[in-house]
């Protein structure tokens, strides 16, 4: 879907991108990295807006020579405000469609459809200038969808949204690949959003791509089965004693949580048995997985 080969970009003395080689595939791909890692430069190169060294192909088209065609097939939801004053949502989306090459009536129909999808029903005839933050984010999403793109770039789509709207936006994003057959690149700093929504990730740091692959590859989907996090109602030390006596390695973490490494032949049943014996109420068992945050830091720090 996106192929980069020795992609480089310098702004004067500053190297924004350095010899990037990567093939990026997936349904919903998280684009992660600290500030200044080169994400926005990468985007500009992929959309064919700036010249660059090396080669970059998006949807099979070369970004160096086919920028406008790529932009016809790609939707961009920017982080910042990107509107024209004095227009309603419908007018803006229709204009957007026309600017991407759709005939007027087609653009109008799709504008309405996109606005419905984004959840802006009654308000879509009112001028955008009066919209709340949540509504503005929805319009930004709708205008990125109106021209039927095959690939969407979403830049901090949940910015400024309250928890409910954030949830709704993430639901919309998760739905998009099935409903509209498009792939998504999601650029964000919020790792829990990525965990919820993405199946692949690209991590950048200091102008280089440090990781490309699935989320599972990034943090090891299945932690080792015997390594557990155990939650109890109270008295963790009693449970710890019972488990240690049975051959497990136990480390207390909080007043209600233990990290437990079971002995080789044991199953989770051992935990239940020890809990019953110790008279402790079990409230949670799960396999210890590296959190996405920890995996991310690991990748960044290895650079």
């Amino acid at each position: 879907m996106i192929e980069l080969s020795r992609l480089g970009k310098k702004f004067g003395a500053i190297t924004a991108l350095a010899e990037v080689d990567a093939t990026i595939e997936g349904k919903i791909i998280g684009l992660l990295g600290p500030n200044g890692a080169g994400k926005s430069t990468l985007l500009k190169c992929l959309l064919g807006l700036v010249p660059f060294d090396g080669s970059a192909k998006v949807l099979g088209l070369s970004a160096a020579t086919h920028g406008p065609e790529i932009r016809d097939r790609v939707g961009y939801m920017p982080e910042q405000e990107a509107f024209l004053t004095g227009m309603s949502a419908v007018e803006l989306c229709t204009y957007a469609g026309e600017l991407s090459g759709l005939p007027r009536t087609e653009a109008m129909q799709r504008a309405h459809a996109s606005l419905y999808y984004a959840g802006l029903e009654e308000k879509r005839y009112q001028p955008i200038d009066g919209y709340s933050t949540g509504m503005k984010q929805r319009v930004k999403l709708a205008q990125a969808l109106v021209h039927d793109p095959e690939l969407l770039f979403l830049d901090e789509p949940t910015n400024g949204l309250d928890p409910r709207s954030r949830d709704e936006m993430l639901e919309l994003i998760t739905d998009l690949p099935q409903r509209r057959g498009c792939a998504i690149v999601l650029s964000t700093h919020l790792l829990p959003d990525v965990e919820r929504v993405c199946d692949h990730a690209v991590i950048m740091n200091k102008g280089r791509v440090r990781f490309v692959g699935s989320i599972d590859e990034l943090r090891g989907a299945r932690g080792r089965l015997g390594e557990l996090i155990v939650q109890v109602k109270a008295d963790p030390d009693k449970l710890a004693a019972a488990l240690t006596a049975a051959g497990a390695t136990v480390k207390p973490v909080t007043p209600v949580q233990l990290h437990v490494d079971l002995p080789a032949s044991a199953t989770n049943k051992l935990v239940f048995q020890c809990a019953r014996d110790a008279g402790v109420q079990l409230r949670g068992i799960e396999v210890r997985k590296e959190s996405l945050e920890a995996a991310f830091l690991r990748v960044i720090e290895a650079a």
Partner: protein
Amino acid sequence: MSVVVADRCSKWYGHVLGISDVSWTLKGGIVGLLGPNGAGKSTLIKMMAGLLRPSRGSLTVFGGSPFDDVDVRRRIGYAPEHEKTWDMLTALELVEVMAELAGVANARKAAKDALAQMGMTDAMNRRVKGFSKGMRQRTKLATAIAHDPEFLLLDEPLTGVDPVARIDIVERIKKLGEAGKTIIVSSHVLYEIEALTSDIVVIYRGQVLAEGNVYEIRKLIDQHPHRIRVECDQPRTIAAALATADHVARIVFERGAVLIETRDPDRCYDQLAQAVLEGGVAVSALSSPDNNLGAVFDYLTGDRR
């Protein structure tokens, strides 16, 4: 003594409602302030910071009015969400100016200390203009603590901050809390609040809807019985064992798991453990999916008409 006491406090802007009849006490610690957009969070914060006066009722900080009393304001540090900074100043100059305005005696030293506390010692002589969002947030925080206030109001302190900087800033805020400062953190990103504290205040439609420890609040939400999810090889065995219990409100089957909704989680967990051992069920995971801030917030603000 309580840090903030609001007594039947209301704020109206003409016809527009800010907060309405709020009676609330803040004793101390790190407290998360949550609420939908437009619910009254910023109004409450601005009133605590001394930028707004109550239309009715009273809101006192450290026993005095922050709007009128300069001495009270000196004990408060406010880091607003949006700030137009003077970009051509360096970080040190900016914090120093703000510290002087707050009446600090040795402003330069205070500014240096504050920036050091926020990890900005290396960058303090650079112009704010070139700063990343993370550095701006840190500078903003330094401004808020330069005059060593006892009470901090942080409005969206982590917006736009990348994951690496986020962990750092969260740690620094926690350290400030451990040093004894009372801190209110307002944010829409619930995981940020969760990383900092379990004590929350929820503002909804201009009023305080809930306050206190998240898990305690959870227990009080009766309409949503506790959910317990058991991933195992015999979900129906578990279901059968619990179906006759009177505290069980609903049992839902998922692929490879069973979800139990119970009004008495204590008894449920005990009965569950018993069923597992008696039935020889292999349990791969046990969790309570809605015992967290996100679910609590959803339940509190979702069902209301």
